[in-house]
């Protein structure tokens, strides 16, 4: 009589699926680096002044290979060559972890937040202003207050496209980009106008108070600040939120099948706005941690390309919050090593952008990688982002 109903088997972790998607990510990185090497080989000849372009002589070939070794060698040493380089890689990785989480969380809800840039800008500005105002507060209040200002400001900048998408169908890919441009203009006005530090000749905000700064973890010799720890914690918090809470379940359900979610009584509008607000808040925290941990004030245009980088990171990690951490560290290493690469070989830092785009192509279009390397095709469905423009 009291036969226990047989509970369905709990879905365990799909280790095999994880392993192949990890393999795809690694192969994508590998393929991108190989093509990047090809780009260096082709263009390094024309870049060097003592060689006429188009002439294919043995000296030129050797020189190109030499430049290639210099470039990738410089990239590696610059990223991981000594403790300070490693610390700098982690510093670079900090905003990438948070911004990557922002994009990944959007993906989970079926939203493509390519406006992390604008949300970072808004977060940075708010944190810088909150950190410089309210002087005299103890650190235990001032630092969280400044961080919170960054989070809220980013969240607001993210929630607007979420609301527009849910209510009017305006595609977030365009609205978030437009909000990037609007944020840049707005910040330009604020930095030159109301929040300008009048004691400085260059337009920038005032320095944040000592009490609002994120402490350095290993003393001022290494730039690694407590923001890195916050980023690591946030990765686990987002993992927990998505996988262990009702909120996360709703977000994932809306992302997987909005019609079913609506049928089950979940509000699309609420979840879109919530997911984009959390996403924007994470991006805002990325900006806030950089301002409060590293820069200590905000100058015009100090974020560059974070929005696009974070897409690459989220795709590399298959939107897995824990996977974001190594993906962001890889990205931090690329960015951190790029400077030495340029110094050693004369190859432009922009090569990193090409490698980045190639990585995105290979990860997003994982059929290509699977096709090149003869891996089995992926099971299950891909998140659909294309749902037309309206209605």
């Amino acid at each position, binding site marked *: 009589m009291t036969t226990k109903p047989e509970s369905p088997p709990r879905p365990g972790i799909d280790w095999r699926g994880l392993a192949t998607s990890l393999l795809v990510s690694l192969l994508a990185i590998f393929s991108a680096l190989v093509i990047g090497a090809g*780009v260096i080989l082709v*263009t390094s000849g*024309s*870049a060097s*002044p003592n060689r006429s372009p188009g002439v294919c002589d043995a000296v030129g070939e050797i020189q190109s290979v030499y430049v290639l070794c210099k470039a990738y060698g410089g990239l590696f040493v610059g990223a991981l060559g000594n403790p300070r380089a490693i610390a700098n890689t982690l510093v670079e990785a900090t905003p990438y972890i948070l911004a990557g989480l922002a994009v990944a969380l959007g993906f989970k809800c079926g939203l*493509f937040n*390519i406006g992390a840039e604008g949300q970072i800008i808004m977060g940075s500005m708010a944190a810088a202003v909150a950190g410089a105002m309210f002087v005299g507060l103890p650190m235990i209040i001032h630092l969280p207050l400044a961080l919170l200002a960054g989070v809220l400001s980013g969240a607001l900048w993210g929630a607007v496209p979420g609301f*527009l998408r849910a209510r*009017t*169908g*305006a*595609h977030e*890919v*365009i*609205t978030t*980009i*437009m*909000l990037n*441009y*609007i944020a840049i*203009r*707005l910040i*330009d*006005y604020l930095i030159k*106008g109301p929040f300008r530090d009048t004691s400085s000749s260059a337009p920038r905000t005032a320095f944040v108070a000592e009490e609002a700064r994120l402490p350095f973890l290993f003393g001022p010799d290494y730039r690694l600040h407590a923001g890195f720890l916050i980023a690591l914690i946030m990765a686990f918090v987002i993992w927990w939120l998505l996988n262990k809470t009702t909120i996360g379940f709703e977000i994932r359900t809306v992302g997987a099948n909005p019609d079913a979610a609506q049928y089950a009584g979940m509000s699309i509008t609420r979840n879109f706005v919530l997911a984009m607000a959390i996403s924007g808040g994470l991006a805002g925290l990325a900006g806030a941690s950089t301002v409060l941990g590293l820069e200590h004030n905000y100058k015009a245009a100090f974020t560059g*390309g974070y929005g*696009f980088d974070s*897409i*690459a990171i989220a795709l590399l990690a298959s939107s897995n919050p824990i996977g974001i951490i190594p993906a962001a560290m890889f990205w931090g290493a690329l960015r951190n090593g790029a400077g030495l690469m340029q110094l050693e070989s004369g*190859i*432009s*830092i*922009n*090569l*990193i*952008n*090409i*490698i*980045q*785009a*190639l990585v*995105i*192509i290979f990860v*997003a*279009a994982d*059929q*290509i990688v699977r096709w090149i390397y003869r891996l089995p095709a992926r099971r299950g469905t*891909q*998140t*659909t*982002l*294309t*749902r*037309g*423009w*309206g*209605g």
Partner: protein
Amino acid sequence: MSEGFRLDRRRIVALAGIVVALALFGIVSSQVPGDQISTLRITYANARPVDPPLADIPLPTVATVGVVALLLIAGALYIMRGTGRDLTSIYAGVLIFATIFVILIWAISGSRTDIVDMLARMVRLATPIALGALAGILCERSGIINIAIEGLMLTGACVGFIAALLSGNSWIGMLIAILGGGTIVMVHAILSIRFKIDQIISGTVINILAVGVTGYLRANVILPLTSAGATGSTLAAIPIPLLSSIPVLGPIFFNHRPVTYLMLILIPLMHLLLFRTAWGLRTRAIGEHPRAADTMGINVIGLRYLNVFFAGMMAGLAGAWFSLEASFNFDDVMTNGRGFIALAAMIFGKWTPFGALGGALIFSSADALQIKIQGFDFALPPQFLQMLPYVITIIVLAGIIGRPRPPAAIGKPYEK
């Protein structure tokens, strides 16, 4: 969307119109003394600055703004009644133009500006947006979302500029820009048609790739070339004989540079091709119902590749406008979001060429306004005017101006 939403939209637009009208009048009347005059000058074609004008139209600033505001409120009340044809879309477009006109009148109060020059500038600045919108129309009418127009423009601008530097001829540069756009767009075509990747992602990939590749080419090819002394010149203006000397119309339509002319020709041409030829019918068919089109013997995949290729060339041409026509120069990310704005213009124009031109002119009027009132002593910080095109884009996308009804099969890969 339900019938209830439509009524809401009508009211929202009408209320927005009233609020904007009152706000504009309130701000202008508090900022500008009542006796100030704004003068709109109409010049002869090809006139030098010292020549006497054709006409000077003196407008009392505050009174003019008051009249505009009253007209806007009257229009809003008419819309609100909601009888007869739905004029909401037209009203919203008029509202944006009226706002820009009021800001212009306000900025030049006590002074004067050449209104013909402003209109000619609007047509010029609309060029890349209208061409980008045409590229979008071509793709979307065939059922492919192309969010990569921004990246295609940037690539076209970059390779066209390099070709112009190497050959010393900007026409060759323009040709290479067109071909460059056509080549890169094939990445999008292959990813989305052959590999059936989400079209938003594959478009975004191209946008990111374009930033990286053009930045790399600028640092490693363009800068070495220019520092070695390579130069060139912009595509020269070609005033059309006789027509260009017509007052008012001459400067606005018949005294432009090549890419702008091509845009002015391509708009009606695309309209004819799309709505009056077999190719146009087939294109619209594969965008609305590819399976039915396939049954009728149309090669869906092949036609999609072809149309995406044409669209890429069109976006490449738009790129040439940036680096070879507006200025002879290539800067990192010089397209500044115009590719995305082009998509908004396309949506505003309900996927028709003439509608897209109308949308492009709304955006370019905001650009022209901002350029035109530089140098006037004006209360509004310039950054807010620079935001205007982007804000309008969001408003357009939010469907406040007209309900978008995209081609039905858009974004869906075709499986045989």
